[in-house]
């Protein structure tokens, strides 16, 4: 179990992946373009990180068409929510340990 958490924490060290998770935690769902603007990154880079998070079942993808244009929306899954909360606890623990 500890190893799994460790692996997840490594996942969130990446700036883009951490950013995606932070944004999705406070929004019901967010589309690709908004994420790209918020995180200030390229299409390819964002897509590969989104793929990785989806493969690990941390986020869900919803594809649809808005005025005939493809619109891809992302939302955080339950396991993603739990993993992110655990990561926050982990960060807090690290900070507390540093203070001692």
């Amino acid at each position, binding site marked *: 179990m500890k190893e799994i958490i460790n692996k997840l924490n490594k996942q969130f060290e990446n700036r883009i992946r*951490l950013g995606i998770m*932070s944004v999705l935690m406070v*929004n019901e769902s967010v589309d690709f373009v*908004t994420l790209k*603007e918020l*995180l200030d990154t390229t299409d390819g880079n964002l897509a590969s990180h989104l793929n990785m998070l989806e493969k690990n079942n941390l986020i869900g993808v919803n594809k649809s068409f808005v005025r005939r244009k493809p619109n891809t929306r992302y939302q955080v899954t339950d396991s993603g929510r739990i993993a992110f909360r655990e990561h926050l606890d982990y960060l*807090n623990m690290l*900070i507390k340990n540093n203070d001692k």
Partner: protein
Amino acid sequence: MENIKEPIQQLNEIRNLMERSSRFMSLSGLSGVAAGIFAIAGAGIAFFYLDFDQRYFDINRYFTEMSYHKFSDSWLFIALDALIVLSLALFSGIYFTTRKARRKGLKVWDSTARRMVISLFVPLATGGIFCLILLYHHLVFLMAPSTLLFYGLALINASKYTLHEVRVLGISEVILGLMAAWLVGYGLLFWAIGFGVLHIFYGLMMYFRYEAVK
């Protein structure tokens, strides 16, 4: 730069993104100040246009035939006055907020702005229609408290998607609205405090907290 190892740095990044993606941060304090100045000017014009009986009226006398007719002569002027104040406040609000967003290199009309505007305008439009109904029933004395109450509730609703100060402003407007409903004759005075003084006060507070160059 791609990986962030420091926990404090990570937490800062998380907080920053959560706020930027869910709250409309470009709302300018100066738009509040401008709205407040227009509101005081508008209230001042109304104050000098109306004669004393209409400025502070007595609820019992209000329902007598005489004072009712007296007010209906002047209400068109007051409505026009209020409409001008509203449009000036709206335009200056949009102007200062657009300016603030441009300076920070942000888009003005994004999903957070949309959410804020919708959550503001649903209660506000309800209040607007309610006030027209009051006018229809000649219940002019309830107009000032109603505008304050609905505006305050709209602000509390919208504050979820913008700067935190908006919530406190909303609560203050609701309290003033309730007081204005209690002390019926002083509507204009409460209105000037709520839309004028409070806007300027909170506008300046927001301006010095988020915008003024230190």
